[in-house]
């Protein structure tokens, strides 16, 4: 038969696997019978870990679609600790208050390095005080997707919780087959991990029949499946609809921000937008909705973390398409399940700088801030006391991608001024922040004089960022600077994965 190949000119450019040698045995049992075997389900997490070949010093990854209700990270790391693993890198898309038990595993040497978008609660507090010798690396969602795609972050084993999965690994954030107690909607961040990790283990509480269509993660990206009762607490994962704030100050800020977008010329038929997930940044949607109705215009697409407020506008026919990388509430998750044009996207598609991502198609984005400085740099990661208590999320990605980035924040929080001389940590550089809207004034980045002009023409008062800073300080007094030690406990990456700032260990009790 080899003679046949030799008769084909340029065979070395055409075929490399020889000549057909027969099809092998065909399976003849029923689909139902087949589903019970030859699948990827292993009896225990320990079995899956062993099968995946995890070794000391490797990198494991997790997603944060279960938010404050996540039980996967703690359960997996507890198991790995019990199995005797050490010196692991934990690369999560983000971590929350619920992950405080990791402190123990850092102290006992199981986890020696962390990559994440954010940290909160006790774990964040301890890390700010120097818990980890190697600084935590903070990346934006887009930056993380790019780093994983380019190999800068190499994931050896991904442990991905999924509210539904079939025996072959088609996994999703909800199930069309039967409602169970847990749904997280989009699994956009997990999809990147599944695609690039060497080995992927799905943990699910809901093993459904093949094929679990539609899926977020396709079976060819999945190696092993572990069925466990408890992947998370539904109440902590998501609840009902995110309600619009009733806080008059947040509403005032939101209304002003909506007016800014309109006056700047970005509210036209067919515009694109991204909203925040709560407070003033979400409430902007409420005022935009009114203005859209008055103008009789529609939004072409809404991007990002999606709330029930956005899906309600979609169902009213005011938003044509939703691109959903993360669902923030149950209404959003249900919409993803039932609305055809509510589409699930992965983290790289959302925000990677390596190619034209969805953030690059945004007219405007509404963003929040813990601190804004007089150079328009924004901090969403460390509190005014220098302690880590936030997450980068898609902040720098969307600010850089959107034609108009609008940062909304109260001028002061209690006694703490929001607009200050220098942010404790630069997360998003002033170079991509266009407008700051507070309850006590609007400032436009001097890079955008045409925006300032348009706002003034619309009868809005535009202050300089320095005037806002002075106004805040007149009320609160000038804060004492935070005392840090020299030691670096966190490194903040810009979305292109260059180092934009560091977080130092806090001084004091």
């Amino acid at each position: 038969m080899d003679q046949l190949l030799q008769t084909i000119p340029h065979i070395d450019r055409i075929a490399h696997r020889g000549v057909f040698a027969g099809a092998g045995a065909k399976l003849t049992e029923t689909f139902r019978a087949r589903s019970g075997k030859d699948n990827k389900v292993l009896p225990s997490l320990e079995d899956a870990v062993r099968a995946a070949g995890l070794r000391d010093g490797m990198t494991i990854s997790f997603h944060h679609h279960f938010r404050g209700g996540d039980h996967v990270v703690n359960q997996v790391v507890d198991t790995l600790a019990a199995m005797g693993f050490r010196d692991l890198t934990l690369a999560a898309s983000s971590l929350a208050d619920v992950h405080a038990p990791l402190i123990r595993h850092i102290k006992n040497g199981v986890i020696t390095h962390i990559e994440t978008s954010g940290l909160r609660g006790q774990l964040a507090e301890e890390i700010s005080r120097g818990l980890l010798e190697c600084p935590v690396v903070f990346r934006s969602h887009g930056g993380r997707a790019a780093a994983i795609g380019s190999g800068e972050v190499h994931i050896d084993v991904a442990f991905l919780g999924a509210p539904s999965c079939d025996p072959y690994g088609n996994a999703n954030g909800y199930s069309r087959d039967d409602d169970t107690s847990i749904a997280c909607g989009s699994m956009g961040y997990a999809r990147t991990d599944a695609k690039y990790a060497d080995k992927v283990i799905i943990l699910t509480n809901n093993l459904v029949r093949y094929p679990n269509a539609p899926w977020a993660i396709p079976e060819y990206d999945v190696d092993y499946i572990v069925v466990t009762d408890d992947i998370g607490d539904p109440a902590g994962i998501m609840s009902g609809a995110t309600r619009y704030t009733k806080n008059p100050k947040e509403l005032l800020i939101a209304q002003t921000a909506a007016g800014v977008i309109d006056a700047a010329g970005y509210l036209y038929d067919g515009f694109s937008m991204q909203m925040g997930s709560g407070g003033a940044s979400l409430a902007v949607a409420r005022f935009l909705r009114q203005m859209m109705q008055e103008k009789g215009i529609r939004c072409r697409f809404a991007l990002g973390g999606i709330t029930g407020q956005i899906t309600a506008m979609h169902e009213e026919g005011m938003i044509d398409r939703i691109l959903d990388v993360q669902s923030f509430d149950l209404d959003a998750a249900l919409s993803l399940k039932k609305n055809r044009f509510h589409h699930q996207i992965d983290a790289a598609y959302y925000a990677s700088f390596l190619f034209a991502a969805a953030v690059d198609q945004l007219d405007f984005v509404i963003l929040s801030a813990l601190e804004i400085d007089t150079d328009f740099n924004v901090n969403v990661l460390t509190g005014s006391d220098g302690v880590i208590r936030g997450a980068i999320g898609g902040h720098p990605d969307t600010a850089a991608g959107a034609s108009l980035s609008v940062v909304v924040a109260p001028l002061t929080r209690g006694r703490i001024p929001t607009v200050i001389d220098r942010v404790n940590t630069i997360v998003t550089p002033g170079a991509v922040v266009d407008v700051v809207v507070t309850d006590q004034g609007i400032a436009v980045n001097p890079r955008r004089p045409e925006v300032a002009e348009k706002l003034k023409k619309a009868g809005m008062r535009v202050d300089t960022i320095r005037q806002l800073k002075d106004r805040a300080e007149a009320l609160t007094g000038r804060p004492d600077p935070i005392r840090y030690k020299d030691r670096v406990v966190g490194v903040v990456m810009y979305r292109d994965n260059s180092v934009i700032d560091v977080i130092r260990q806090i001084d004091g009790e």
Partner: protein
Amino acid sequence: MELKKTAVAGTMESSDIMVTVEPRESGGIVLELTSSVMKQYGRRIERVIRETAAELGVEHALICAVDKGALDCTVRARVSAAIFRAAERENITWEVGK
């Protein structure tokens, strides 16, 4: 001003400060301050409390203050209210101007 009893003013709500003033025979003003903004404003709050007590002629007292981000004017108001309550006095000298 002579303090007669222990008195409290203010609440634990955000932007407020709860001040307890206890009479002492000697030892000057002993201040126990906790604050949600201790690192940024602890020194300043302490200064305002001591100034207010001095202006009202209180020489010896234990002052406990639990601050939830009160502005200076609130700190002054709560310290004054607690001191007048502790002194059981109502004839307050109000002053004109800023």
